[in-house]
């Protein structure tokens, strides 16, 4: 089970959270202007990264708030958590996991 650091409540076990998928996917500002390819990208296509992945979590059995996390999907190590709306933190080369 993951230990996840909620930016508002601190470290809590994974069972308090629900997963929200890939982060930083912005809802289209002008949906009527999107073509089919852009809709496909927004609705269905995901990076499915092997490595550092920015993703949404919700502390559903705690404060109830959404936040973002950087997690290495090759090791499940959580590298950072940050508030929704903030840009993805730059971990720098030193904290990049070994491939």
């Amino acid at each position: 089970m993951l230990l996840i650091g909620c930016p508002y409540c601190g470290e809590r076990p994974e069972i308090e959270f629900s997963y929200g998928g890939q982060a930083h996917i912005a809802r289209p500002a002008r949906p009527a202007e999107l073509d089919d390819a852009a809709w496909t990208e927004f609705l269905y296509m995901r990076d499915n990264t092997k490595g550092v992945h920015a993703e949404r979590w919700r502390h559903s059995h705690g404060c109830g708030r959404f936040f973002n996390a950087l997690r290495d999907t090759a090791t499940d190590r959580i590298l950072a958590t940050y508030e929704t709306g903030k840009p993805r933190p730059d971990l720098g080369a030193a904290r990049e996991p070994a491939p």
Partner: protein
Amino acid sequence: MSRQRFSALALIRRGLSGHRGWQPQWRKASPQPAYDAVIVGGGGHGLGAAYYLAKEHNLGRIAVLEKGWIGGGNTGRNTTIIRSNYLFAESAALYDHAVKMWEDLSQVLNYNVMFSPRGVMMLAHTVHDVQVSKRHIHANRCNGVDNEWLEPEQAKAFCPPLNISDNIRYPVLGAALQRRGGTARHDAVAWGYARAADALGVDIIENCEVTGIRKDARGAVEALETTRGLIGARKVGVSAAGSTSVVMKLADVRLPLESYPLQALVSEPVKPIFPCVVMSNTIHAYISQSDKGELVIGAGTDAYTSYTQRGALHINTHTLDAICELFPQFRRLRMLRNWGGIVDVTPDRSPIIAKTPVPGLYVNCGWGTGGFKATPGSAHLFAWTIARDEPHPINGPFTIERFRDGYLIDEAAAAAVAH
């Protein structure tokens, strides 16, 4: 090349001579400079595709590249359930194609894959479940797939360990039974296809990871960069399950996939007690008994995407809560081992067997939590698609473009969430 044929006579003869003289089942092949077709991924789907390419399409020089050992991915990690009782016509055709091929696969491959059509029973626990199950049954029958409704007493007669008392949290209100469904020996499927493909000249190359996909001037596939050198390839079929996104990214092809850990576990072996396969989507568990006597148990994926081939213990605990409620006599059984595999899940929970925007590059992916059941059919259709550069009518609807065009085959919404 000649291979020893397996038969009762051969078994007796070798038995009398102390089982010496069995040959290796397939060669340890080294990569050649170029092939007419290369399959990336040495699981059941990939090995099977190579076999059908050689057997039915006579495609010339064929290789299977596997980054680990064959059958070491999801083929060796699943709970071996085989069924075809899917709701939509497209899915029913696809999965029933596979079930029909399972029925004589041992004879075709001359390798005992231990296909056992012992019946797959899917439980209904709520009024909604009952209605959905009956809808599935009618839809299946319209598509020529067997499925029948059982009242709780009939379900218990078919599976005596089942608890049908009305004082559990989600009592059993009935069940849908597909008698042609069942299980098979998963490792034997990989080994049987490997042996049969090798006998037709296919090179099976293990410990060979693809690190790059080279394209020629018009953008078509030309060669694969691998950890064992550059391998020329006219056609490349990617059948890499959970790692499909990683491999396809090498060719700049984006797919609607997310990779999740899916866990399974087995109990200590016990004498035969469990005659069929039982699944419950509502309280989320499925169970059967292997020929070794272990109860084979699984349920849903972990919550988050991952490539680690392991998951969290609370998922298994939750699964066992459901199993112990349905089968209270298993409460005292100890669990022997658990493991995880990485499953590639599409938004509609239906697979993709299709051409890609890159000429000469094909993909077979998105089988999610239920790919084992489809192994022979999937391999057969993928080989067809690669050889003819067009899909077979059965896998025609299972394209990447269905997500753009809105033709989803939404088995996810049809509640076929557990496999």
